[in-house]
């Protein structure tokens, strides 16, 4: 999440001592690591020297210097060290805390129209997963001012942002009871966007009006529909416009190569005795073993003429037997004896999905016009008047 200076002519970024990197062991095992000269990382894949990363570009295989201490593996493995992104950081935190999911924060950032220079007020910080996504969008000239009531969590978030070198964009305000005291330290009409992940967003109407600039957008993050109902009622009362409530269920797919074989229906035209048809068909419909399939694919790959031996071309020859076959055909190449069963790509969603994260409600602050009737806000709720003290954000 480092930001280049404008005159940086774009040398490939290398990892430096003190940088936080993501260690990708496998899809479900991501950890974070701060690089220190002469330090080592030990995990199930072995012992890894930080020195191998320092001064080198990330995204390559990081080979272990020796096998894991447990000694269960005979040869040293490798992992990948990656530059941190809000998405990777969120997944790395996923197993130990509640996060705003990356697809949600991506959609929120877009619907809040975040861009470099935007000022975002967030309440509360939580794990910081949304804050990081917002910070990336508004850096380097914008600011994310995030409020977290709990000191322990605020401290953790501050450390996290520090380690990501985001402190110039992100400031964490701890211990403020925003419901009672408001967004302390945020100037009137200074925020382009406000993001509320709090239990009672519907009690923050006047705070929203105060800190948002005219036409600025608020997004509330509410798990339950009843809370959304109260929030929308408040927003309508405050004459916010462009109200919209959405949910974004996340469905991910897996794609596999699949051998599609026909049941013993091919023999229908020839008259066979029941038993004979049955036995022959049952052997024919047996799916080939993985070994057979691999062997076949190898043969295919060898038989196919490789005209362009770049990695990309290699990829395309192995990218699915069906594609290979079709494109070979399309180029008029006779593939001869490489007769393959019908193989195709099959996609389906993973069994379970993140069906619901939260309701996202968006609305824009109206402009203040002198002739408006909502100039007497005290008639509309129990929200205290806006405090004007100007604490500094920590």
């Amino acid at each position, binding site marked *: 999440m480092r930001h280049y200076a404008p005159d940086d002519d774009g040398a490939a970024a290398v990892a430096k001592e003190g940088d936080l990197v993501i260690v*990708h062991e496998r899809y479900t095992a991501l950890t974070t690591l701060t690089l220190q000269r002469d330090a080592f990382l030990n995990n199930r894949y072995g012992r890894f020297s930080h020195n191998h990363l320092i001064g080198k570009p990330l995204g390559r*295989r990081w080979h272990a210097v020796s096998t894991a201490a447990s000694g269960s593996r005979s040869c040293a493995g490798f992992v*990948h060290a990656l530059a941190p992104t809000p998405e990777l950081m969120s997944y790395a935190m996923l197993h130990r805390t509640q996060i705003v999911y990356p697809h949600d924060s991506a959609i929120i950032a877009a619907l809040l129209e975040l861009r470099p220079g935007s000022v975002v007020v967030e309440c509360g910080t939580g794990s910081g997963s949304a804050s990081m996504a917002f910070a990336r969008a508004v850096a380097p000239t914008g600011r994310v001012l995030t409020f977290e009531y709990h000191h322990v969590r605020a401290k953790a978030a501050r450390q996290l942002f520090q380690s990501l070198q985001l402190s110039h964009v992100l400031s964490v305000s701890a211990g403020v009871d925003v419901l009672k005291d408001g967004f302390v330290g945020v100037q009137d009409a200074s925020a382009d966007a406000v993001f509320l992940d709090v239990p009672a967003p519907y009690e923050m109407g006047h705070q929203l009006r105060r800190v948002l600039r005219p036409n600025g957008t608020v997004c509330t993050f509410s798990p339950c529909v009843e809370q959304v109902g109260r929030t929308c009622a408040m927003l309508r009362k405050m004459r916010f416009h462009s109200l919209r409530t959405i949910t974004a269920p996340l469905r991910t797919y897996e794609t596999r190569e699949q051998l599609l074989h026909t049941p013993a229906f091919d023999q229908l035209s020839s008259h066979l005795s029941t038993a004979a048809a049955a036995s022959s068909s049952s052997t024919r419909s047996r799916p080939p073993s993985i070994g057979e399939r691999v062997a076949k694919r190898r043969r295919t790959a060898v038989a196919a003429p490789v005209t362009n031996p770049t990695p*990309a071309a290699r990829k395309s020859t192995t990218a699915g037997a069906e594609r290979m076959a079709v494109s070979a055909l399309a180029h008029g190449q006779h593939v001869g004896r490489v007769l393959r069963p019908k193989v195709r790509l099959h*996609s389906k969603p993973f069994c379970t999905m993140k069906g619901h994260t939260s309701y996202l409600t968006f609305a824009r602050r109206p402009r203040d016009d002198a002739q408006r009737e909502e100039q007497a806000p005290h008639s509309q709720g129990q929200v205290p008047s806006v405090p004007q003290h100007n604490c500094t954000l920590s």
Partner: protein
Amino acid sequence: MGSEPERDTICENDWVVLQSSDGKKVLGNVTNNSSVRIGKRKRKIGALLGKHWGDTFAVTAQDFLQPVADIPEETPDEKDMGTARNNQHLQDDNANQTLRQSAILKLKEAGVHGESLVQTVVKHSSTFHSKTPFSQHKYLQRKRAKFDIRVRVFKPTALTVCETYFEKSPEKTMSLRADALGMVLGYSGVRSGARVLLYENCTGLLTAAVAERLGGNGTVINVFTGHTPPGIEIIRMLNLGETRMKTIAHTPVELLSHVHEREVEDDQPLKYGPREGQEAGGTANGNNEHVPSAKRAEAIAQRPKRGEVKRWIRRGCDCLIVATRFDVVKVFDVLLKHVAPSGCFAAYCTHLQDAADLQYALQLSKMAIRVELMEVNMVNHQILPGRSHPAMTDSATGGYIVSGIRILSPNEEEPEEQS
């Protein structure tokens, strides 16, 4: 840091998004005499000049826009599905309207318009007073939307332009929905200062959206085929300004095969033919005809040098975004190798079969990890007291996104790496 301050008021030649009270959006380019189609007719929008973003306007009888305080009631209360079921009235309001269309036209010509016309029409409805208060409200809203059109002016941002095109001409932007746009920008890791490699068939929407997110720092390398960037007219609609326009480098695809070579043209600006006046940068005018040749020469001079683009690409791009009607696997074949290891990529596909091919090809390639195929799902909700539910009719899909992180495959790694 290069990003221009955002203007609060609307200036000559600015593009605007106008949203009517019924939610319909339209894009317009503001000059003293320009007009856009709102409702069923063209309306002069000169009155927008000097006004603030977010202001509201009414349409006068003379088809002018005219500033008003606000849109009377923003969010229409929708039909209560629970109880309406049991009192299905006749829906054909016109049958119960004693005022003829010709009479309404005459009233309009006589200068009766806006709310007073609505009230006249209500007075002549034979069924209005027999309606429930709820139905009366609905009726009024329909009539207001017809006779008292109000519009609100929005900044043309990636969001509002994306939504306008999704509603009106989705075929021009590959049906890219706002949530899909957000996910593409998020998962590809676009950020200020990044070098973004891009191939799109969304008429420039993605190029502009990336430039907006770069905020004047970094580069969008918009790869194109042919001798001129085809279909990028949306770019100029975002009022990007010169600084942000300068981050866009339209790059012919053939350059990619020469990144490691030295060529005589390396000292010269990128060569490609002009089209549709988009050369003139942030101040492109909407009439896209005669760009003065001096201005054009200046615009060409502002293009990055061929050798510079090659150097950027040699050092590796930080992000890759693809949204194509063509074979997405082939496009990745050509572009992914120019992404620096640990860089992120996101491809937007409209069909599952394409996304699946790409996911599978990437899995086999060993040039990427954390390859994910996500369906872009968004449910709109009606939230009203006692009448909350998901939208009865909704956009069915936002397409599919394949995302992942580029890594160096074992074959690409240099032996010295294995120290």
